[in-house]
């Protein structure tokens, strides 16, 4: 049998593989270019440009002004409060999300669809309504307000209200991420684990959790991002007491309305940086466990 030289150039050689280029199933180059350009343009205008403007505005009067704006006690208090709200809301919603996803993906029970709808509720109601709910419940004239006041518990216009509102708004993220994942994975591996003698908690730790950890991570990151960025619900319950009940987004608005642009954008830049850190952690974990991830996904 004679040897054929490798096909040169785009000319169709007699033994060229059937799918040498995807010209047959792909788009013409012009369309591809247009799609890429459109995407980049959109990203540039709606994402990169605003982001760049945040940092340029924050540093408009030099680094010293930027640093002193951040060192302002009110700004520091806002940062602390935001981190606190996230630090309480994210772990709680992680536990809740895993439990809810587990219940929904693994068990059949009456009212399951109703439960799924309930989990989606914070997504479908306006955050402002979410805030108002807490005012109605814990406010001075609310159902539990007088009782709370009698016991010296201050919820509305105080830190607990902010934390509660944050929890409410962010609670679907983890569950929403995990439910479809756990449903599609099925329970076979868990069944295998229990036939091999693993008890509930160890099965969860050794089999369930490793299988859902990437979905869980995405859910937690989304939950965290929203917890730190939430404005509407927190705004209603906060009362805007400077240095006490202002979270970062609220503080940004106040400063902006006071024409303190450097302060407003400096704080906004910190929020943006926190988002970068979140993304960075995610990328790092993916890079670190890349082969494992590929092994799990490739199955």
């Amino acid at each position, binding site marked *: 049998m004679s040897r054929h030289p490798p096909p040169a150039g785009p000319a169709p050689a007699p033994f060229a593989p059937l799918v040498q280029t995807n010209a047959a199933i792909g788009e013409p180059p012009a369309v591809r270019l247009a799609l890429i350009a459109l995407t980049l343009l959109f990203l540039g205008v709606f994402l990169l440009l605003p982001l760049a403007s945040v940092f340029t505005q924050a540093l408009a009067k030099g680094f010293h002004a930027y640093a002193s704006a951040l060192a302002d006690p009110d700004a520091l208090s806002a940062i602390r409060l935001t981190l606190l709200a996230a630090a309480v809301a994210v772990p709680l919603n992680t536990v809740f999300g895993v439990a809810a996803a587990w219940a929904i993906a693994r068990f059949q029970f009456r009212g399951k669809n109703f439960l799924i709808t309930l989990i989606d509720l914070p997504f479908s109601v306006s955050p402002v309504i979410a805030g108002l709910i807490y005012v109605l419940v814990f406010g001075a004239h609310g159902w539990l307000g007088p009782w709370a006041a009698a016991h010296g518990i201050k919820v509305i216009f105080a830190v607990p209200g902010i934390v509660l509102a944050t929890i409410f708004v962010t609670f679907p993220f983890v569950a929403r991420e995990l439910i479809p994942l756990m449903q599609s994975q099925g329970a076979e591996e868990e069944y295998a684990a229990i*036939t091999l003698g693993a008890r509930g908690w160890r099965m969860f730790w050794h089999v369930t959790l490793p299988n859902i950890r990437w979905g869980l991570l995405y859910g937690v990151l989304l939950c965290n991002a929203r917890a730190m960025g939430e404005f509407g619900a927190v705004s209603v319950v906060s009362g805007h007491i400077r240095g006490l009940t202002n979270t970062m987004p609220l503080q940004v608005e106040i400063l902006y309305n006071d024409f303190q642009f450097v302060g407003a954008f400096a704080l906004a830049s910190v929020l943006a940086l926190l988002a970068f850190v979140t993304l960075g952690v995610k990328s790092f974990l993916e890079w670190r466990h890349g082969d494992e991830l590929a092994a799990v996904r490739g*199955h």
Partner: protein
Amino acid sequence: MDITIRGITKRFGGYTALRGIDLDIRSGELLALLGPSGSGKTTLLRAIAGLEPIDGGRVLFGEVDATRLSVQERRVGFVFQHYALFKHMTVLDNVSFGLRMRPRALRPPRDEIRRRALELLDLVQLGGLHQRYPSQLSGGQRQRVALARALAIEPRVLLLDEPFGALDAKVRKDLRRWLRRLHRETGYTTVFVTHDQEEALELADRIVVMNRGVIEQVGSTDQVYDTPSSPFVFDFLGSPNVLPGEVRDGAVYLRGAAAPIDGAGGLADGAVDIYARPGDFRVVADDPAAVDGRVIEAQRTGVLVRLTVSLRSNGHTVEIEIPQPDPEIKVWSAGDAVRLRPAHFSLYRERPGQALEIAQDRSGDYAAPGSRGR
């Protein structure tokens, strides 16, 4: 370990998957649960493992009432149809999982666990692959990892759900032979589920034929194949031809034949269905017990000739297979007249006026005197 199953019932909503199953599984045997999809065979297997809560009945492991035991306490080795290997663990970690999950007091030391897992991997001929992840293995290799993992807990019984269902034909054949040998070497009581009659016949010591939540027949491979207790079992274990026949004067006649093919063996007079497999027919020259037919199609398949014959008595066609006698001799071709009679057959009788509800009232619908050879 002997396993005794008494009256297991399982319902899914309004659907009854198991209707009072009784079964004795003998220690050390290799038992096949054979049936079409929806017959309840997998449900029964999962019920033995405790993975499927049952609505009634009991499972005994030896003298122990397993129905009261949790899945973990039952210590059954279960191999899932799609293996259910732990994707994020290496092969070694998969196999050693059962030992690592033991309570601290019963857990062997680390080195011992590793040694035993490696030993098992050698047993399933996967030595050297212990550091791979399941996604880096072929289907047959995954299957064997799943088996090694199940064996690691020294199970009371090994339960395999369609063990070769997801594999291609060649691998399946090899694995069957290998599993048979492994069973001989290890001696574990093994129950496997299959819908493939060939697999059941080739692999099992005994076969349980299931249909619509009941057991149709339990027996050795020979018993089930040679004397199927119902048309369903006959049908499931090979493509049967149904010939019209009748019982008169204490003998069984093919319809239209002058002489009987067999004694009636206590059957009352009347019509009877004669079931025979393609290979059980003989083409005869002059036999008063035989019936006439005409060859519609002749197809040579290696050493056999497959004939499609139209019967003169009722115009039905039968498929028969006969050995190719000699390449020199002319064989049958379309249009030839042939006389044939079944050499081995089974008799079944439908009670007149009753629908064919095999599963629900099989004992009543059919008088099944069993099957007799000539």
